[in-house]
């Protein structure tokens, strides 16, 4: 079953690449603006040989990882805190709903004012966007706690910390994992967007330079790299999720089938 899936996936990708080669070659789109797969692959090869590319990749991954870590930790801490103190939750509910839909990209001028074009302005955008993903999931997760289990823990005299540790956290963990997985993708998108628009060092600014330089195959090669990066991050997040939740019925069920 797994082998078949992999084969189908590979076939789909091969068909996509072939299409990318054929469409410009047949003249359906202009080669100058949409280079065939082989030329993009060539440009990708040149990129991989360039030291500056690896520096840029490192910059992007640094922004992504730092931003995601900060957002995930802050999201979990704030989420649990809001859940444990009901008044706090009620006091912040409308503020959260107000702040959450603000697109991170709209904060670019603020980021530039505060931090110029450095890593910190990337972090501001990344953290802002991914924080909500985690926080909202934690809030949902906490709401899912079985009231009977909670009451039982209470009547057995478990303190607040023990209740968080033994009742709340195991219930919320699948939600937290979902939140972190979503946040990982959002963080990558925002890191690259910030670099692209602000010009902070990284893959995004490299794409922007290629764009303004009329280096079209290079631009697509870099875009392919960001796509691959997103794919890897998603696969990685899924495997972490599966491991962390190996005990949970959702994952146990999946394995048993």
């Amino acid at each position, binding site marked *: 079953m797994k082998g078949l899936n992999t084969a189908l996936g590979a076939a789909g990708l091969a068909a996509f690449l072939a299409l990318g080669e054929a469409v410009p070659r047949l003249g359906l789109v*202009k080669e*100058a*603006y949409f280079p065939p797969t082989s030329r993009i692959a060539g440009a990708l090869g040149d990129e991989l040989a360039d030291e500056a590319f690896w520096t840029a990749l490192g910059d992007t991954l640094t922004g992504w990882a730092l931003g995601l870590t900060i957002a995930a930790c802050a999201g979990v801490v704030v989420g649990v805190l809001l859940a444990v103190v009901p008044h706090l939750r009620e006091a912040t509910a409308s503020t959260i709903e107000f702040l959450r839909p603000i697109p991170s*990209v*709209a904060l*670019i*001028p*603020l980021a*530039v*004012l*505060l*931090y*110029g*074009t*450095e890593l910190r302005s990337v972090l501001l955008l990344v953290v802002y966007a991914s924080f909500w993903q985690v926080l909202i999931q934690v809030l949902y997760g906490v709401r899912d706690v079985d009231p009977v289990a909670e009451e039982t823990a209470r009547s057995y005299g478990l303190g607040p910390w023990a209740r968080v540790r033994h009742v709340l956290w195991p219930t919320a963990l699948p939600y937290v994992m979902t939140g972190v997985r979503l946040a990982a993708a959002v963080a990558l998108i925002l890191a690259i967007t910030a670099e*692209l*628009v*602000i*010009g902070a060092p990284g893959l995004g*600014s490299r794409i*922007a*330079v*290629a*764009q*303004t*330089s*009329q*280096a079209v195959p*290079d631009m697509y090669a870099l875009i392919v790299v960001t796509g691959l990066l997103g794919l890897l991050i998603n696969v990685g997040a899924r495997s972490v999720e599966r491991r962390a939740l190996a005990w949970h019925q959702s994952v146990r069920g999946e394995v048993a089938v």
Partner: protein
Amino acid sequence: MRRLLAGLAAGSFLLTTAACGSSGDSGSSDKDASSGGTTTVKLGLIPIVDVAPVYLGVKQGFYAERGLELTITTAQGGAAIVPGVTSGQFQFGFSNMTSLMVAQSNGVPVRAIANGIASTGLQGKDFGAITVKKDSPIKSARELEGKKVAINTLKNINESAVRESVRKAGGDPDKVTFVELAFDQMPAALDGGQIDAAMVVEPALATVKSQGGVEIASPLVDVAPHLTVAMYFTSTRYQQQHPDVVKKFQEATAESLAYADAHPDEVRQVVTTYTKIPAAVLAKVTLPKWPADADRASIEALEKLGEQDGLFKQTPDLDQLLP
């Protein structure tokens, strides 16, 4: 995307003025720590051909021999550079003249201190041009009436310039439909027929020409024979606090500009270190002029056009703005 950026830029102007009103001296001392007679300053640039002289100047040691160490930060467009300079993230920046005048008329405390680039002054041989597709029926700027013309930013230097070209050719610029489009997207849009004409600058101009596109006017030359298109600037506060650093920057930049003007081959070489312009395109790029001094008469002409087109809230004070 361009529209988004323009909006962001406008927003950031407002934020900038607010930030400068309240932050006092906090931002001024950060990045210019002196050590052993060397002052490190940050310069915010757009990675384009125009700023090649600075890269050459650094390479030739013009800045170092005056005790200046330049840290070049590249940003995408003025949207990041003007607020970056006024908030003290960078000490110096590069921006086009109209943006600087707009900033000043909005009360943003900027001061132009060194010349940036100028048009070549030659009709048909400038680094920016209004271009049309191969076989287009449009032959002159006058015929742009009722047509769709792409410019990189609405209500900025290129709109002023294109309007002037239409006017000079005997047309009515109000009848032209301007659409905002990034320079790098213009060749494809022109080719695909989404627009009838495009105001492009290098290296997109070289791409358009390589597709058989035709130049119908040189708008930057139409504004003034030797138009000062862009300049290096700082914040008024930084200039007041560090007049000596500004002076060194001015001297080193003037030397760099003169060197670049005299060594076009080295310019083309240094451009490859910070852009990805393909060699074939770069060889065909028309370089701008890099005179050591700004041409005040040309800036006045640009200011007049800006007034006419309603770009300024109040008339920019050129005595305050220019070095």
